[in-house]
């Protein structure tokens, strides 16, 4: 069923319209008004998962703070797996991003003297999280969307689902996408492509993530031959609301919230006596899980949980600083944090790994860039600090836009071979939509999430990972026998779900394979069978390359500039 594809042509195509994608579009448009830029997103831009970012954006703005301090916090937080040259670049660029957002109208929360306010955050040794109440990502997104709309050379393709990246001779040529409204597949020719599709925490059951965060871009890059880096490092956020997993910002602890176990004890004193609740996320999530495993969780209808107590902050402060989470807790959990503690548990939250990209957001494929959570520029290493992700999206989104613009101004379009298009059409319309098997998307998806949640969670073991890998591969086999019930063209969300599942199965496989190979515990990756960090053997990044038989792993060194690895205590 090969259909004739229409060709759309743009100098730069950006996939994803979250913070990184929009920031990239603006940066590219600023670089040259002669560039024709497209932003292709499977959702309307302001529906992107970036709007869920709550607590803040880290940047050095004030006396008493310094680039070195922010960099050191980030490197220590990363359990020394971050590339220190990239971190140093990152912390220097972050403040500029806060100011441009301010200039475009971002409603930052203010100090009493009218300056941008900053709050303390886990793992940061200075209050450097700029925030807009507890809707920081939301306000950054709406500000960026407003700004992006000002440029005549940015065209939005809203609700277009990108299915593949086309690479020829290690140079990007374009991509294929389905216009959801019509169900037609079309091809975009582009000189440069920026991937900014976000994370994939939806491979888990209990996650803070939007339903749409399925890591499509990572999987497409992987299939196109770009390696995925450090995929074993998944961040578990300490405060996912029970039972939905909805994020309760780390800002709640930044503002002074307590974590309490069944004994009514602030148990963090046993794990991070100095930083307490404001230790980095990997440490707090491990502590919570240990408390629950050792029987000190609080019993509830959805299993044992930990209490996040904000009552001592008082209603006024909660309303001013944390209005969203109060509303969400009341509406969806039936708990008013002014009166009762919020039931929470660690939830899958962020992928430190992603598309292998360097300090300039370049990937090994010429003309192909990556920014935001889908990318890995080695800033976060084995564990990201809270509020460093929105900074990352802004800083590297801007870099990607500028670099892609420079590239597009000095390079031409590549021919897209017809057989690649035909193959992609076959994959989507014949092998997935046309498949008349008896497997169903929700069943395989739930199986995948169960496996990941049970065996590839906070504490990992070699035999369980081995088992999980086998099971995910079985699911991949079963997926070949899929049946999509909806055979229609317009807005076929059944097909979208199948395509997303197909992508996430690859990502689950890479995550497990990378985790299985790394026989040490570092940052968010904890192996019960290898409980110690092993700098001698494992101070290196994992690269996973696509092969038909599964990921092939290679390793590259970590860049150390100023801070040799030391013991990590908080």
């Amino acid at each position, binding site marked *: 069923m090969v259909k004739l594809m229409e060709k759309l042509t743009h100098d730069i195509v950006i996939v994803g319209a979250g913070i990184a994608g929009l920031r990239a579009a603006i940066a590219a448009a600023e670089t040259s008004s002669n560039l024709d830029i497209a932003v292709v997103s499977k*959702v*309307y831009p*302001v*529906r*992107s*998962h970036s*709007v*869920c970012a709550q607590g803040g954006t880290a940047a050095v703005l004030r006396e008493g703070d310094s680039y070195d301090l922010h960099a050191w916090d980030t490197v220590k937080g990363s359990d020394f797996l971050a590339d220190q040259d990239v971190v140093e670049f990152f912390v220097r660029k972050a403040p*500029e991003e*806060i*100011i441009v957002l*301010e*200039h475009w*109208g971002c*409603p*930052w*929360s*203010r100090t*009493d*003297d*009218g*300056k*941008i306010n900053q709050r303390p955050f886990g793992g940061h040794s200075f209050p450097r999280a700029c925030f*807009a*109440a507890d*809707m920081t990502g*939301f306000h950054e997104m*709406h500000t960026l*969307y*407003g*700004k992006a*709309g*000002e440029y005549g050379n940015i065209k939005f393709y*809203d609700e277009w689902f990108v299915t593949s990246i086309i690479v020829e001779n290690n140079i990007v040529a374009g991509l294929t996408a389905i216009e959801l*409204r019509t169900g037609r597949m079309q091809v975009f020719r582009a000189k440069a492509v920026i991937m900014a599709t976000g994370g994939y925490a939806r491979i888990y059951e209990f996650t803070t993530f*939007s*339903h749409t965060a399925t890591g499509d871009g990572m999987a497409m890059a992987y299939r196109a031959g770009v390696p995925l880096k450090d995929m074993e490092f998944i961040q578990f956020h300490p405060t996912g609301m029970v*039972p*939905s997993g*909805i*994020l309760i910002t780390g800002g709640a602890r930044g503002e002074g919230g307590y974590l309490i176990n069944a004994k009514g004890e602030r148990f963090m004193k046993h794990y991070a006596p100095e930083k307490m609740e404001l230790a980095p996320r990997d440490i707090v999530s491990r502590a919570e899980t240990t408390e629950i495993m050792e029987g000190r969780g609080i019993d509830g*209808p*959805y*299993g044992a949980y930990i209490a996040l107590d904000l009552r001592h902050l008082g209603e006024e402060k909660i309303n001013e600083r944390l209005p*969203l989470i109060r509303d*969400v807790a009341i*509406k*969806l959990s*039936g708990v008013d944090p002014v009166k009762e503690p919020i039931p929470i548990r660690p939830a899958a939250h962020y992928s430190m790994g992603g598309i292998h990209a360097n300090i300039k957001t370049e990937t090994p494929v010429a003309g192909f860039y990556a920014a935001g959570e889908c990318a890995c520029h080695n800033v976060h290493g084995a564990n990201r600090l809270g509020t460093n992700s929105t900074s990352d999206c802004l800083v590297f989104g801007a870099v990607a836009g500028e670099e892609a613009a420079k590239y597009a101004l000095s390079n031409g379009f590549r021919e897209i071979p017809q057989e690649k298009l035909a193959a992609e059409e076959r994959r989507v319309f014949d092998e997935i939509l046309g498949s008349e098997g008896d497997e169903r998307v*929700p069943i395989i998806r739930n199986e995948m999430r169960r496996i990941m949640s049970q065996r590839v969670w906070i504490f990992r073991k070699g035999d369980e990972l081995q088992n999980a890998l086998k099971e995910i591969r079985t699911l991949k086999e079963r997926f070949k026998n899929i049946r999509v*019930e*909806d055979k*229609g*063209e*317009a*807005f*076929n*969300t*059944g097909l979208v*779900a199948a395509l997303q599942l197909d992508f996430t199965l690859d990502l689950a496989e890479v995550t497990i394979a990378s985790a299985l190979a790394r026989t040490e515990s570092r940052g968010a990756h904890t192996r019960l069978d290898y409980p110690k960090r092993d700098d001698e053997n494992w101070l290196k990044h994992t690269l996973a390359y696509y092969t038909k038989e599964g990921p092939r792993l290679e390793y590259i060194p970590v860049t150390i500039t100023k801070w040799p690895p030391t013991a990590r205590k908080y």
Partner: protein
Amino acid sequence: MNSEIEKTVEFRIHRFDPKEKRRYVSTFKVPVRKGMTLLDALMYIKDNFDESLAFRHSCRMGICGSCGIMVNGKPMLACYTQVLHLNVDTLTLEPLQNMPVIKDLVVDLEPFFGTYRKIKNVLIKSEETFKKPEEFIQMPSELKKFWDLTLCTKCSICYSACPAAIDERFLGPSTLATNYRFITDSRDEGSNERLKTIAENVWLCTSCNSCTLFCPKEVDSSSSIVNERSLIVETGVIPRTVMEVLNNIFKYHNPMGRYQTKRMEWAQGLNVKTFPETAKAEVLYFVCCLTAYDPRHQEIAKSMASVFSTLGVDFASLGAEEWCCGDHMLRLGERGLFETLAEHNLSMFQKFETEKIVTLSPHCYNTFNNDKPYSDAGLNVQHYTQFVAEAMDQGKLKPTKPFSQRVVYHDPCFLGKRNEIYEAPRRILEAINGLELVEMRRTRENSFCCGGGAGRVWTEDAPPEKRPCISRVKEALELGVQIIATSCPFCVSLLDDATKVLEVEDKIKVKDVVEILKETM
């Protein structure tokens, strides 16, 4: 790790098959657990019953704005509403309104997002200020002034509920609120430009308040629009139609430009007592301009006078001293003029000794109760439907003549949405022998505005198919009723016009509740 099933709820989902252009309804029985949201239920249906069901969703925490749908006639975010909280056994889900349906619950958002592209969504300042690599200073108190307006998620629920948005010239509540958000941002210097963008079309808003009522983030778009109008009125550059109304009020104290000395013409031969000859009565009857002057509407005023008489109520009117209540002025943005009218009326109320004021119009009723300076005066005000329903409850009034008609009641926004008075008019109609009362699809708090509020009754210039009243009369026609009853002079006026435009005035009549009551006494 699931909680127990609390009950089974039937979901009736209105669907659209784009290929066959077919509308149909699918019914699903969903086992509902504690905490389950409407979105969870939709996902349950998709996973277990029908994978082809199309709906949008993403964040499931009320911040991305994807999952707006109509639930039992009311627009809401599916993810932000728990099924058990709705307290029903059957739910009807439909796609949002005012936008074409693509498939099932998925609507075409282009008309909605298109409105954003017409305004500037970034700060406007001089080039020089942007060159400084530092933050602008904004005090927390300055931020507070517009913060609530920044919470708009662009979910399009307000647009879906907006009667004015059927006219694509209108930018819609959320876009106008966002425009006002920038105007009130102390960092912004672009007010003039921003006002200019909306100066032609902002007048289409009827202040029905649906946007504000249904907003999941409690963004007060309705008031933002009024505030923008105020700023435009200050500039003096306003459409001729609006200018005429303001001029009439200024010169004649009523929007129709009639002499106040003729204000009691409606009561000719009725012997209604008036101020200043009478300065004391049990009830002060506040008639409203349209009912006082317009021959069609004078019937309403007369009917109520006759009800008072039947009840033996001692009532009087302010006569030539009854000035327009000013509601339309306030909502057109002419606060100064509103205050002049209010001061006059209040000084009359002071001179007049009475137990209560009874108004014919929900607009007078609302402004007396809710808008300063009236609301500070502690007036005892009733809408006539409340007064009459109370008299009926006390057994003082009983309609006797049979009235064998099928009647639908249209809720006026200023009585219903703004004051939650839904039962009184219905109680009156239900007390009438033989009258069969039916409800429109959009009813009570989900009612659809006639299109006359906020002065639009005087300034209407939209082509017929873009007028809310036409849509409303069509809805009534589907029910096969002989009469649309309502309890607001402006609703009567516009719905009446609509029957003429649609050439159905032989099929369907528009009457005020009090007119029907009078006929049956």
